[in-house]
């Protein structure tokens, strides 16, 4: 949509999934799902509870290995890579049930995210070589810059576990952004937030997409958020694709309404 005038079709898709399936015993949690996300797009993955949305995220990030199908990120095959390798390839994510490093400070959480982009050896850390001081300073500056984007800079020295709920959600996004991803996966970012916080979150997502020229795939139940920011949607039901396309079309699709509200 955004890159329609881009002539190079190869470069157009940030993520393309082909016939992705995973089988848990007798249950096919995700069944031949295909999806294409263009560069710079805000893409939504919705569906009723238990539809397999988080499983798709776990497949994309290498937590599970798909039974069939392939995943391409920016033209590179990342199917079956380990979680850490997938992150280094350019996918970062947040979690439905927040997973922060609770005993570390807010700033240290973000600095953990910077781990692979700012490097010095264990030995220069123990011996406190000049490189340690130089890189740590760069990490502090970059970390504080990211925290200020999310309005968390005043809490930099608080333990992450002591932050209020909404701030923890934002910190998770900040930590994911610290890994400098091409594609950001948000798993129910607005869960448990009040309407004001949700609105603020929408603005933040817009802002970081522009600032870091990011592609975003998000799972969400809050239809206001979905219809407000997603450009295209895929609806999952029982692991299968129910509908796909522009947000307004998909949300008016009778099949989708039936899946959500019942007959």
């Amino acid at each position, binding site marked *: 949509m955004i890159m329609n005038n881009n002539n190079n079709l190869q470069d157009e898709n940030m993520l393309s999934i082909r016939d992705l399936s995973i089988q848990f015993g007798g249950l096919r949690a995700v069944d031949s799902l295909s999806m294409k996300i263009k560069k710079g797009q805000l893409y939504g993955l919705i569906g009723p509870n238990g539809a397999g949305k988080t499983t798709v995220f776990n497949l994309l990030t290498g937590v599970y290995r798909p039974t069939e199908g392939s995943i391409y990120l920016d033209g590179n095959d990342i199917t079956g890579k380990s979680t*850490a*390798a997938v992150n280094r390839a350019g996918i970062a994510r947040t979690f439905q049930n927040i997973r922060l*490093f609770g005993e*570390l400070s807010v700033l240290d959480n973000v600095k*953990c995210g910077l781990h692979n982009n700012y490097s010095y050896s*264990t030995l220069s*850390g123990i011996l406190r070589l000049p490189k340690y001081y130089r890189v740590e300073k760069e990490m502090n500056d970059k970390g504080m810059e990211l925290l200020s984007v999310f309005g968390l800079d005043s809490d930099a020295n608080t333990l992450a576990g002591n932050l209020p709920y909404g701030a923890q959600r934002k910190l998770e996004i900040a930590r*994911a952004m610290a890994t400098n991803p091409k594609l950001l996966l948000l798993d129910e970012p607005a869960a448990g937030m009040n309407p004001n916080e949700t609105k603020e979150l929408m603005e933040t997502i817009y802002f970081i997409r522009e600032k870091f020229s990011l592609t975003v795939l998000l799972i969400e139940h809050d239809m206001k958020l979905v219809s407000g920011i997603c450009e295209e949607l895929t609806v999952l039901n029982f692991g299968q694709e129910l509908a796909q396309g522009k947000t307004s079309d998909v949300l008016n699709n009778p099949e989708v309404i039936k899946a959500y509200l019942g007959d």
Partner: protein
Amino acid sequence: MKMSLSKFSKSTVNMIQTLLGLALTYIVITIVSMTGNLSHSMTNILAQLCIYAIIAVGLNLCVGFLGELSLGHAGFMSVGAFVSATFTHAAADAIPSIYARFFIAMILGVLAASLAGFLIGIPVLRLNGDYLAIVTLAFGEIIKGLLNVFYVGKDDNGLHMSFVQDNSKDLGENGKMIINGAKGIMGTPHVTTFTISMALLMICLVVVTFLVDSRTGRAIQAIRDNRIAAESIGIDITKYKMIGFVISAGIAGIAGVLYSHYLSTTTASKFDFNMSILILVFVVLGGLGNFRGSILAAVILTLLPELLRGLSNYRMLIYSILLIGLMLFNWAPAAIEWRARYAPKLLKLFRKDK
């Protein structure tokens, strides 16, 4: 002072305070012992206190920061102890200076203990859960069992080893046994002094504090707090678990080297399961992730049985009651609340006095 300290991180400030405390203790004890006011048994126990403090600091890195339970740190200690003491004996002719020999023995002992940690880590640190506790427990027992039937002798032809039988008869002229099975290594020169142990304790404290407060240390703590999240931001779990565990085992090796050059006789049975548990008690009572606490707990819990010696049979009874009391003071919710309520008031009083 406050101005200059604020530049450092909180853990570094903590470390500097602990180092100052240790230095002060060292000076006071040296003065007391020079004026002849320290009993013989106390003079003897000083180095042992430092050795236990060192291994407690090392184990705290593993349990408190890596979040992996090790029930076999005495095993790593015995690897360091036997390798270094064997070297000290074997190289007695080649390197006459005992301090030069001790220095090389220290390096060899630490390397051997780290290698043992590495070898155990290869299969175990890939797994999640409490496997490390089980495997290290087994490791400690296996090492003890092997060393109990390990015979090393030295003659003009070099070293002779056997796991089967006492091979002292096979040795040629000028031959002597170094490791004598269950009887262990006898007559190791007494190199470990209070000064050397204290210096190494300080070095270990600096190393672990600087390690924890670095990129590597953050990765290690991230894995402890949430493994899945750590993986999701690209941290190599196995690598950083391995770094933490190997350093922890290496520090146990330092303690072992000191211990074997402190005792005149090193036997495998000294490094048994009870010793591993004792070290774990230091760490848990001192507080997970609190190096100063580990040092204090190691000192207090090693001194207590000595101080209670006069009570003969009631000694261990009182010791265990004190353990329970300490545990409650440290971890009971009511005690934590009480401390939170009264500690600031006490501090305020203290400041007014100043």
